[in-house]
């Protein structure tokens, strides 16, 4: 439990809590609330050999792989759905063996996080038997129900070293408000040794209370205010996702050289997040915040 009343730090300091070789959990999912600013900062700081666990993700994981920061990927999905297709860097790394793929299932990951949250050394999980998932997970075992005799797969707790969560607003203590879907963020917070949070805006606690605390601050070790910290993912109600930028990334990541180019141009820039935002451009960013003005405007962001 982290009891300091004021945990505000800058992005670089927050990122320093993540060490080489850490097991990390990335908040949000697919195109929503990905902690992209923190991902970029970890790359800037040269983090290596990370082990990422979670459910369905996209550019956050792929960019860490493209930048050579990831050693083990234990997600249930990495990709850009039917719209932009397979995750280029993930695919290449998996096919050439430069990362260890420990693909998992949402239910299994959830169960392993719950084991950590509940302080239990194992939990049974229904499913897995009969599939090939155990070929990727020699660490699973079996357990027999003492009441029914049913044999179930037993999974160990999953305790990430750090959960990295981005939210629209938070307070100095680290209380976080976010909209649904929370995805696994609540469980990441409960299962991890610490949470480092980035938020669009740090507000007084009273304001946060009125909106509703989703992740309590006692799980949070550090909080940094980073506007557009999820870009190019969405962070509702602040902004929608930047489909054009995601598409630019997917095209660049298709080849190692152009992937390096993306990292050089957008991530490893001397001005950090300020420079990133400038490069994306105020006009583009503002457009993403205007999703709520009309259905046509919203829909227009996806055309």
């Amino acid at each position, binding site marked *: 439990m982290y009891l300091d009343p004021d945990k505000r730090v800058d992005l670089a300091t927050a990122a320093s809590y993540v060490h080489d070789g850490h097991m990390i959990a990335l908040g949000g*999912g*697919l*195109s*929503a609330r990905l902690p992209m600013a923190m991902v970029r900062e970890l790359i800037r700081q040269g983090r290596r050999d990370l082990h990422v666990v979670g*459910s*369905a993700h996209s550019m956050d994981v792929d960019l860490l792989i493209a930048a050579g920061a990831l050693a083990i990927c234990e*997600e*249930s*999905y*990495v*990709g850009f*759905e*039917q*719209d932009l297709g*397979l*995750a280029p860097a*993930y*695919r290449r790394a*998996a*096919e*050439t*063996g430069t990362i260890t*793929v420990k*693909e998992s*299932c*949402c*239910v*299994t990951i*959830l169960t392993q996080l*719950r084991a950590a949250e509940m302080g239990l050394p194992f939990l049974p*999980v*229904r*499913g*897995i*038997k*009969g*599939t*090939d*998932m155990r*070929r*990727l997970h020699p660490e699973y075992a079996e357990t027999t129900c003492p009441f029914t005799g049913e*044999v179930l797969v037993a999974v160990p707790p999953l305790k990430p070293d750090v959960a990295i969560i981005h939210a629209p607003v938070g307070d100095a203590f680290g209380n976080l408000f976010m*909209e*649904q*879907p*929370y*995805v*696994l963020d609540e*469980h990441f917070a409960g299962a991890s040794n610490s949470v480092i949070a980035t938020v669009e805006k740090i507000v007084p606690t009273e304001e946060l209370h009125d909106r509703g605390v989703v992740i309590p601050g006692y799980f949070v070790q550090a909080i940094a205010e980073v506007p557009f910290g999820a870009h190019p993912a*969405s962070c*509702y*109600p602040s902004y*929608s*996702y930047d*489909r054009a930028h995601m598409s630019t990334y997917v095209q660049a990541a298709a080849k190692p050289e152009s992937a390096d180019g993306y990292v050089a141009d957008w991530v490893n820039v001397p001005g950090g997040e300020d420079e990133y935002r400038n490069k994306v451009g105020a006009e583009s960013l503002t457009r993403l915040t205007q*999703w709520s003005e009309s*259905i046509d405007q*919203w*829909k227009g962001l*996806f055309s």
Partner: protein
Amino acid sequence: MSSYTFDEWYVIRLARTISDREVVFHGFASPCAQVAMHVAKRTHAPNMMLIEGAMYAINPDPPFIPPTSNDSSLKRGAAYSMRFEEFFDAAIRGDVDRMFVSGGQIDMYGNTNVTAVGPLERPKVKLGGGGGGCNISATIKQLTLWTTRHRSGRTIVAECDFITDIGHRTPAGTREELDYTGGGPQCLVSELGVFDYDSQGRMRLQELWPDVTVEQVREATGFEFAVADEVIPVAPPTQAELDVLRAIDPLGVRRGEFDPREMEREFDLVGAGV
């Protein structure tokens, strides 16, 4: 009488695999299934409970289907969104009646592979992964399988290189032997035909699109499959279904699942190719 394209008819056929009063779920990256659920809810299945993909929103009324599964537009009008664990718990304990499942490979028994084509250690194609399908395919009551890539010859295969989601039986045994309470795949809708599963859990051709022959299906399929005594043509869509479909998917995200060649298949309202 207006004409319609194959993607429209296909999604409407998918929608018809849903019965009224079912609790139905689609995963992310599944626009055809996603649009099909909204079509069913707005036509023949008004009392189904629609669980919206990655949002877990209950019976939302989105203004449009966006090209990503967890956009906020997809929970508009929903009084409630499940938490992640609420949905998966419901699926595991048997409270979900139907899920849509697809895969890079689908075998005779309806097992699917969304993990990797080729040897696992050095795959030829690393697919995205299965989300929660692995576990919940064991316990959800019925599965609608779908693919838009049957014609490729690489999708409906004798044996999956990796079994991610479970069909009627795997080398480890039948569902009964594995203590699984879900009923497994009820049907497979492909861009060539519609299949059910026989008492041994094997795929069987039931319906054909009017511009496809049994021979074409055989050529595209990696194993010998049974054929129903009477193979019937897929029933054409109604104007009401087409109207609903076009209203809910103005961006045409469903089309992202198809090979461009399939888009050339166009029909009129009696269901004949034009």
